[in-house]
């Protein structure tokens, strides 16, 4: 749990040369979508960065975010960045359990009071705190307790950022995002279901490099990764512009890789880095694999109608509603016609 080594010292200890460190810095610049001219500055900043303590809390979640983050077994860039953070508590990953684990958390909080980071995945149930507890402590209590001495909170995934799937209609557990409970600490929302692993580590790397939190959009997401829509950077954009769409998942358009707007792609209204960073270390992303974007980094994406209804298809109600409206209209029409006829009759009688 030593936090006194700089990142450069850590890498040196692991037998990584300065060349390797330069490669590492170049990788981070690429990751954070910073211009290559920033590489020397990143290298200099990382050389002197000290490992901040990170406490990772998992609440009402599916563990997908942790899975996304810890995909690789080899020392990848992401793994190294993650290792550069002193991971003092992660109840899914850590070896310790029970009282020992909780003691580790409390010790880390005490030793690093005011400067540790808290990462949270999963939403917090408020309808009955008993819905989700760790070591008998409800999520909401653990969050409040741990957030008190934190420098900042990183809400990882759409559940922690916006409520996510537990928050979807009818929200039986009363799930709320972290930002609904913690009001007095800076919160970074790294949304996505799950978020791209490189985005999670990119945010941490940004914190390491600049010692402060990144610039956030109005939903609290780092602009570096959530500043553009999928649509803005989609490689299928030329087909959208020309009006060439896949109508089914198996037709000629689909095989030719045409735009998936008509199959429900929510790319135009979804902010994330999938189209540039992609998934599985740049292998592909949903649209490239032939499926429209679900909009998983946006609030309430589970409650916006079918994933396969295009943005043009509105939730216009039902034929029954319109049938009733038609009858009502006809009734009003008949009524006003009757009134008019009476006026007309009177006018005629006056004439004759």
């Amino acid at each position, binding site marked *: 749990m030593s936090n006194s080594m700089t990142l450069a010292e850590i890498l040196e200890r692991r037998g990584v040369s300065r060349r390797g460190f330069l490669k590492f810095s170049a990788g981070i610049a690429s990751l954070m979508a910073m211009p290559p001219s920033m590489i020397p500055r990143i290298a200099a900043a990382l050389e002197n960065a000290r490992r901040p303590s990170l406490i990772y809390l998992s609440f009402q979640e599916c563990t997908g975010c942790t899975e996304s983050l810890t995909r690789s077994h080899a020392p990848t860039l992401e793994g190294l960045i993650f290792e550069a953070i002193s991971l003092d508590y992660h109840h899914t990953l850590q070896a310790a359990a029970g009282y020992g684990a909780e003691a580790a958390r409390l010790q880390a909080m005490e030793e690093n009071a005011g400067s540790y980071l808290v990462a949270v995945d999963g939403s917090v149930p408020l309808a009955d705190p008993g819905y989700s507890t760790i070591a008998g402590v409800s999520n909401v209590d653990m969050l409040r307790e741990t957030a008190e001495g934190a420098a900042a909170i990183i809400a990882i995934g759409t559940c922690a950022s916006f409520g996510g799937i537990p928050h979807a209609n009818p929200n039986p557990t009363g799930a709320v995002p972290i930002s609904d409970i913690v009001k007095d600490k800076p919160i970074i929302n790294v949304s996505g279901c799950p978020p791209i692993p490189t985005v999670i580590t990119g945010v941490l790397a940004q914190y390491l490099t600049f010692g402060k939190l990144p610039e956030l959009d109005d939903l609290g997401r780092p602009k570096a990764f959530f500043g553009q*829509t999928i*649509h803005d950077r989609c490689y299928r954009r030329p087909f959208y*512009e*020309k*009006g*060439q*769409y896949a109508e089914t998942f198996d037709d000629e358009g689909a095989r030719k890789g045409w735009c998936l*707007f*008509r199959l429900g792609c929510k790319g*135009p*209204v979804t902010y994330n880095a999938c189209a540039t960073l992609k998934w599985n270390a740049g292998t592909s992303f949903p649209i490239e694999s032939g499926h429209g974007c679900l909009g998983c980094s946006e609030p*309430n994406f589970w409650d*916006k*109608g079918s994933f396969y*209804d*295009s*943005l*043009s*298809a*509105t*939730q*216009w*109600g039902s034929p029954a*509603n*319109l049938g009733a*409206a*038609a*009858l*009502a*209209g*006809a009734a*009003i*029409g*008949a009524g*006003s*016609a*009757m009134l*008019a*006829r009476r006026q*007309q*009759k009177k006018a005629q009688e006056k004439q004759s």
Partner: protein
Amino acid sequence: MTLLDFARGPAMQWALIIFTIGIFWRLVGTVLLYRRRDFSQPRRKSGLPDGARAIVMRSVLPPELEHNIVFQHVTGYLWHIGYFVTVLFLGTHIPFFKSLLGFGWPHLPNAIVMIAAAVSLAVLVMLLVRRMLHPVLQKISTSDDYISVIVTILPLITGLISYANIGFIKETNLALHILSVELLLLWFPFGKLMHLFMTFPSRYQVGAAFGRRGVKA
């Protein structure tokens, strides 16, 4: 609820409901109005041929009359056709109709539709300016005239802006476009836009009524 969610959800529901109520009110109300009985001997058994003839012939005026109104005639067709091509044949509009009607139809390439939309918008704006500056039109134009043309132009402008994605972010542009369509739907039953439903039945009735008396109308 974001603006787009509102536009695609409750706003669309209510706009369609009010539109439906309004259309049925106007149509039923008009059809049920008192009509004076014609006691003359009908020249033909059915008014259909004369009615149908009137519908077609009203669009093709005799040269003596055409010469006076050729400008309105051509510009009118230009922007109406462009408008319908845009509304009915743009690829991204068809899922909207499909969700309403249960069926769709093939779409045209965006290049063609955008040209139609641009021409339509240019002509509409030009006609609006003409209405505001022309000495006669100024005097005879009512608020219905101005409101109807503005609610017609707004979906076209917001649609082009959304397609080009300028101004606001895509989500807002799309929301404004859908809201402008809803505004059109709301105004529809209450002004001269009703000519969409009234024109052909009206022509038919005049043709049939005159045809009954042996007059080509």
